[in-house]
């Protein structure tokens, strides 16, 4: 009965330190604690004192303000252990960095040590204010990564649970199959024996031995065939399970630890998180600038008697021929190469080819042309 309440003590004389009622009088008495001060009191005291809102602890000398909703049952008999476990849980909840987030094993170990130190500080009440402040600052700065890691932990826990359940189920299925197999075999054996007996009864005595041999053989054949069939099915299932396992059991991706950079001051050795560079907008020209002319601007039309006949020719224009293209081409050809210094380019190319960076001739030439244009 007592263990049902989570208290393993069978102490009949236990007395509530607040109302002094004892278990002897009230066998259903449950003791509760509040993690503010860990002073023990019975359930009826909690109801009585804290039902109407927060109040100070009734234990003499303790002036902590307690709330009813924080009261809970004690897990460990030793209040000190209870307190340490609480602290540990809280700190671990905040400082929940994972090993993969660190540069090296050493850095992770350092982090673990740091965490233990914080816990020890809180447990032993050394530098409580400072440590608490540190912890709060860290929690605030790394809210996102803390959440992500918590989520990850939960996922791991559930997937672990699932795995165990699946394994149990599998074991059960295996047992069942083995049982069925055995049962089948037994039944079949019996059937062959009966068959053999009836044939013996109806047949003559001469072929009794032959029949016996034959019957044995048939049985062996049957059972081996069945076994191989079963083996085949099993293999298939195993393969299926394997592939499924691969699919479902995809390794949990490390938390997107965006925003963890801020915690770098507090925790050393955190891996630098590479925030993927935002993809540049697609450039249809891939860096080339369309229509750029360094030395001239093209006019709409140029008066030139030579072209007048062409201007009037609708057939030519119907084919898509455009004089603007002619203007553009002639102008381009007239100005192309300005600012290109072949001597310099050749010297430059020789220098690079001497370094063993031989480039295909045409590409090199054009690349240089581009360079020349830029230089101009």
């Amino acid at each position, binding site marked *: 009965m007592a263990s049902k309440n989570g208290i393993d003590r069978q102490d009949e004389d236990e007395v509530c330190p607040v109302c002094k009622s004892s278990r002897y009088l009230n066998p259903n008495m449950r003791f509760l604690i509040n993690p503010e001060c860990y002073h023990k009191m019975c359930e009826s005291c909690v109801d009585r004192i804290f039902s109407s809102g927060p109040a100070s602890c009734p234990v003499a000398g303790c002036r902590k303000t307690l709330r009813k909703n924080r009261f809970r049952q004690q897990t460990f008999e030793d209040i000190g252990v209870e307190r340490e476990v609480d602290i540990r849980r809280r700190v671990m909840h905040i400082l929940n960095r994972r090993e993969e987030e660190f540069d090296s094993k050493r850095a992770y170990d350092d982090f673990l040590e740091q965490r233990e130190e914080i816990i020890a500080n809180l447990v032993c009440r050394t530098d409580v204010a400072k440590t608490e402040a540190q912890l709060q600052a860290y929690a605030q700065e790394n809210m996102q990564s803390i959440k992500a890691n918590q989520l990850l932990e939960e996922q791991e826990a559930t997937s672990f649970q699932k795995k165990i359940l699946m394994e149990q189920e599998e074991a059960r299925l295996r047992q069942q199959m083995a049982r069925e197999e055995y049962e089948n075999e037994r039944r079949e054996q019996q059937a062959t024996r009966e068959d053999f007996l009836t044939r013996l009864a109806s047949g003559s005595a001469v072929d009794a031995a032959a029949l016996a041999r034959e019957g044995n053989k048939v049985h062996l054949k049957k059972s081996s065939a069945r076994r191989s069939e079963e083996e085949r099915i099993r293999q298939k299932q195993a393969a299926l399970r394997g592939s499924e396992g691969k699919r479902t059991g995809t390794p949990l991706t490390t938390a997107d630890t965006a925003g963890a950079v801020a915690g770098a001051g507090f925790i050393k050795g955190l891996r630098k998180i590479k925030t993927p560079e935002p993809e540049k907008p697609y450039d*249809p*020209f891939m860096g080339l600038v369309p229509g750029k002319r360094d030395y001239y601007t093209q006019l709409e039309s140029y008066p030139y008697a030579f072209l007048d006949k062409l201007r009037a020719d609708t057939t030519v224009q119907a084919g*898509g021929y455009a004089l603007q293209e002619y203007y553009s081409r002639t102008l381009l050809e007239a100005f192309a190469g300005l600012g290109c210094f072949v001597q310099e380019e050749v010297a430059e190319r020789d220098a690079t080819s*001497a370094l063993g960076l031989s480039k*295909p001739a045409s590409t090199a030439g054009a690349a240089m042309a581009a360079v020349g244009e830029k230089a101009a």
Partner: protein
Amino acid sequence: MALSPFGSRSPAVTVASPNSALRLKAAAAAPQNASASTSTIIRSDLNPERELAEQLNDDIRRKYVKGKKLGEGTYAIVYLGNYRDDPSSLVAIKKIKVNAEYKDGLTMDAIREVKYLQELSHRNIIALHDVFSSKDQNLNLVLEFLPGGDLEMLIKDGDIHYGAADIKAWMGMLARGVWFCHENFVLHRDIKPNNLLIGADGEVKLADFGLARSFADPYLNMTHQVITRWYRPPELLFGARQYSGAVDVWSMGMVFAELLLRVPLLAGMSDLDQITKICEAFGTPTEENWPGVTQLPNYVTDKVVPLQGRDFFLRQFPTAGPVGADLLMSMCVLDPRKRATALQVLQHRWWTTEPRPTNNEDLPRKSGTKKMGNDLARVGGETDEGLFKNAARQLDFGGKK
């Protein structure tokens, strides 16, 4: 704007014999081999009757090692090759067949290919590394090796699935290549999925410049018998002799449609059938929608189909999305003057709307690319077949002292 220094060379290069063509190339290559000139001089001292051009040619030829045959076309055989001093850097060596028709010279295709490829250097245009002649005066073009197959293979391979983002990436690369050609006043004149090769990194490259030429020359007639029929624009089918980059844009539009539908949009059986198919699909060209069209030499009409509106493209190409359908529509305008230019295509808003074009490394590859890729990844001279190929690497205790 990046322009080749050769861009301003006179376009009227006439070639009388293969020998003179080679001399031309050799002359162009002369400054490139300045570093090797000392050895050349020594050799020319030893062998005074050998021409300088021949020596330069030999120098280039010796740079490459020809490997196994990759494929054979009507006028060329393509071999796999590599740099002699770097076996891992692969190239494709295109050996032009000596044609019976051009006994005294080179085929126009070869000349065009050399002439325009050496001028154009762009990510989306196949690179021409070198040109040399081998024995029997065969012309060899050293081209960039593109192991990824071509777009036609991807379109036809039913096992490959691709989406709007992939199409956008491919079209973007195609449009950049075409735009760069046009910006340098070169018409490709044979754009089709078959000629869009894919590099090891997934980049689409414009190849086969056998029909390319410069344009915008006034009073200079060009042939209308170019571009594979299914991708040929109406002005060429009507026999226009003066045209512009709009012809390549039409082909680009056809490739776009084919990428979306996975079948050629307008697969005409004959030139006339092609005109009929175009009219049925987009509407009949008339004086109203295309002023002057009736004066084109081969203009024909039977029944007049009204021009298709925007809703036709929206209905026909739902995968492109409304903006993509708009772009396709602008590329498939009958009147070449109203058709989008390659520049306008690239300035279209489709490129910046969702979905973003797929990154090259994520683009679908042809099946079997893996093997090719492995070949490329391997360092030259290294082979898998060793005695201990499956054994774990032995621990080296030599370094530990």
